[in-house]
């Protein structure tokens, strides 16, 4: 469990980093962010990068700020930075709550928002947040920039739209009118990747749910919004029976991932529980 040899680069500016990536990506060069996924994979030799381009020392890639109704998150913003509210209001509160489900303290101190998106683990909380809120990512390479919608960015289990020589530099997280949110995650141990999780966001209009966004993660190859469940809730009161209907719909439309710990049937039951509990959580954050 010692990594293969690699050459380490520590650029201090983005252009330099992009140039290094352009130069080395064709021969197995990779970005190193928090290292909390990449380094263990290197230790197991599942990843054998020839060059590592460490982006932790590029000051402009860190930190988050509101711009035009969206939270713009620099790629190397640490998970821990979200703990006490990275921005005011319900968005900051929601991100803080969700972040506490990612791994353990030491990992949250190093692991980054952008690294999680680039890593695209099906059970990553940040990937679920991006998809559910309809976020976008900025992808840059030495000669250009593009914005990609989160829903198009995640293409499979640990697979994304990133080209080898592209770097994810920012994530844009829009926050609509709604300020109701709920989140529930089921995992074996505290800090483990989710077996199933659900994030729901909506606004209340005269006691009825509007603009409902309901996403699930950890259950399919990529996080996904569940339109059928959203449709059941839209225009309805946030009540137990409605929540159960939505949860049943979510479970029914699932394309479950399975492994030796979780059968398809079990995954459906987990998703049903996660959806219902996230909806209840949206009413009571105690």
């Amino acid at each position, binding site marked *: 469990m010692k990594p293969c*040899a690699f050459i380490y680069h520590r650029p201090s500016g983005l252009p330099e980093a992009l140039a290094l990536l352009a130069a080395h990506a064709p021969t197995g060069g990779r970005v190193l962010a928090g290292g909390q996924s990449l380094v263990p994979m290197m230790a197991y*030799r599942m990843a054998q990068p020839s060059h590592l381009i460490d982006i932790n020392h590029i000051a402009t890639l860190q930190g988050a700020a509101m711009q035009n109704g969206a939270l713009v998150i620099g790629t190397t913003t640490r998970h821990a930075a979200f703990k006490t509210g990275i921005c005011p209001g319900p968005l900051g509160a929601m991100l803080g709550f969700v972040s506490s489900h990612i791994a353990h303290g030491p990992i949250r101190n190093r692991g980054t928002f952008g690294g999680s998106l680039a890593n695209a683990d099906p059970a990553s909380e940040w990937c679920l947040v991006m998809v559910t809120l309809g976020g976008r990512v900025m992808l840059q390479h030495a000669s250009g920039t593009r914005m990609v919608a989160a829903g198009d960015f995640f293409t499979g289990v640990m697979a994304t739209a990133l080209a080898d020589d592209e770097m994810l530099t920012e994530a844009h997280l829009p926050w609509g009118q709604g300020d109701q949110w709920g989140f529930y995650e089921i995992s*074996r*141990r*505290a800090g483990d990747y989710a*077996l199933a999780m659900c994030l729901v966001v909506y606004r209340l209009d005269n006691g009825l749910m509007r603009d409902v966004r309901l996403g699930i993660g950890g259950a399919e190859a990529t996080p996904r919004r569940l339109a059928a469940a959203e449709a059941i809730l839209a225009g309805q009161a946030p009540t137990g029976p409605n929540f159960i209907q939505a949860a049943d719909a979510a479970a029914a439309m699932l394309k479950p991932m399975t492994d*030796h710990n979780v059968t398809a049937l079990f995954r459906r*039951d987990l998703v049903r529980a996660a959806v219902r509990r996230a909806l209840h959580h949206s009413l009571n954050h105690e």
Partner: protein
Amino acid sequence: MTGWVGRPITRFEDDALLRGAGHFTADLPAEAYLRFVRSPVAAGIIDGCIAPDGVMMITDTDLASVPPIKPIIRKFGYVPIAQPVLARGVVRYTGEPVAAVIGQTEEQAEDFADLVSLNITPAPVCVTAEAAMAPGAPVIHPGMADNIVVQTALTTPGYESANAKAAHRVVTKIRSHRQAALPMETRAAHAAFDAATGRVTLTCTAQMPHLMHRAITAMLGMAADELRVIAPDFGQKMSLAAEYVVLVWAALRLRTSIAWVEDRRDNLMASFHARDIAIEVEGAFDNEGRFLALRGDITANVGAYAPYPNTAAVEPLMSFTELPGPYDIGEYSCAARGVITNTCCSAPYRGVARPAITLAMERLLDMAAMQLGMEPAEIRRRNLIRIFPHTTPTGLVYDNAAYVETMEMALLAADVPGFRARQHAARARGVYLGLGMSSFCERTGYGSAAFAARGMDIQPGWEHVDMTLDGDGVVTARIGASPHGQGLRTTLAQIIADAVGVVPANVRVVHGDTDHTPFGWGTFASRSLVISGGASLIAARKIRERLLQQAASYLEAADADIDLRDGYASVTGTDRRVSIAVLAQVHGGFADDGFYDPLGTFSNATHIAMVAVDIETCMVRVERFIVAEDAGRLINPMIVDGQIHGGVAQGIANALLEEVIYDETGNILTISLADFLAPTAHEIPAMTILHRETIADATMTGAKGLGEGGTIGAPAAVLNAINDALAPLKVTINEMPATPARLHAALRGTK
């Protein structure tokens, strides 16, 4: 008169560890590093193993003169099986070492290992005991008729008639899935050749440095003086690692220092596993719920090879001998077998087979209680042994204890009626709470007679302590046993301090180095405090006698008037005193020794777990845990509590989380800590620990062993609690770990 024994003094061991200043084998620098090339398949014939030019590789061909590891038991139909230190033409489990490559760094050694081309023609595999016992199953070791490596059976003369009288009969099957001990420090070894003396010093993680020394010198044809073993260690290392033999061979051959540190993947894949056991038990009870007879049928999947010194028989034989536990079961009929499979070999791990047999008995009693309409505590009250000494059907003699009283202590602390009320109220809200108990007794501190009864070629048992008192007033105890984190350095110091009359800080315990300690067997089987403590007490008392005489003549008083305490000898009722250091200077120091070989003693405990089962997500939370235990005299209550905390944490993990998983081809799926789930502080509740002290007259110190108890009792308590929680749903689970997937299958009736 109060002394040091019984006080919760802080451990001498902790200061360096807490400051991060402890020494580890992997810290030692070496000239060369070794890496093993391991079999990627569970069974097959080796067609070739080729290293690229310039890579130094060791294979079985180089080790042709090294005999295989082949421990022997001369009873129970045991068939000795041989494990070549590197695979000899055939591989028998995924991860078996086939070759070793040598690099200048660990990284380079791993690069070289990746470059070796190993060709194996796969052969049919038996992964489970059922598959290995099926008619026509491939026989894994040549010379064996089938894959059963050991088997034994016993039916007491009165069994049939007692069984026939049963008013109630309860049968259950339990399954303990495979565990790994998961030491924080994996196996590691550093072998350094000294050109001046021609000696090799092997620093390694092992619980039995002297036995490692004996085994390795014999296998490599070395004179005893040519090897020094330094092995202070922690966990999983009771058995000889084939890898260590290769390392010493390489150091001798290359005349250099060479190191090997097992990584986590190799540790989970190819270090020792444990507790892959299935048990069927049938209880015959009278109308009052009293045992008339017990029948057991035990199958242990022991893996591909037999670890030295314990052999592949330890789990089935221990299960067979100790199944009845703390209960008066009347008549007994039991059959047990150990089955060779294409999996990593099984070796003793804290508790050995007892978490499984305790699960079997405790599930049986809970099911019987349910059938008879009794509270679980009541059926235990009626069956726990009350009269001591008690001889079991397999000939074990339980010494003085208070099993019922220990259980009542635990029940009182648990407030069972209060819990039942909460449970009832919670069920109405769809919340499923459960309370489970388990009682067990644990055979500890047993000497050579117990090992002789097993028919082992190697018969551990006694311990020897060499002791000196020098002119600086410091007592040095050189022990053959080997502390491995359980605080032995501190507890021995407390025992010796009282006996000699010094403060514990002035007791030095030297251990884990074959150059500086007398032969001893090491640490295992909850024996060290009992046996090494007894030998220490014997040696210390001899020194005390001579010190008293010396003090009497120095202070011109009668022996009987001398008080030895905390470094001084004084004349009772006067202010005349002299320091023990001065007495030692005058005398030219004192030296003596102690030898102790006890029959053994049984500690006991009752564990109670309270859990909440989420029937939607199938997650189980252990909310409270209570232990009432009786391990005789408490030498250091804080250390006792620490042993129980750690043991219970391992037991809860065994019940809910940890499992080694193979697929049907014998490929192992749990090779990282993302898959083999260790408990964290989040999963382990605060514990309530209560003590009884039935002073053991079977031991020198009055103490009984307790190192394994936490691990033994906790799984059954947790499983019983889950079953109690799910009783209204008529769902039972008798497998551990009771993972969410298994609970889900049980709840959904989809097995």
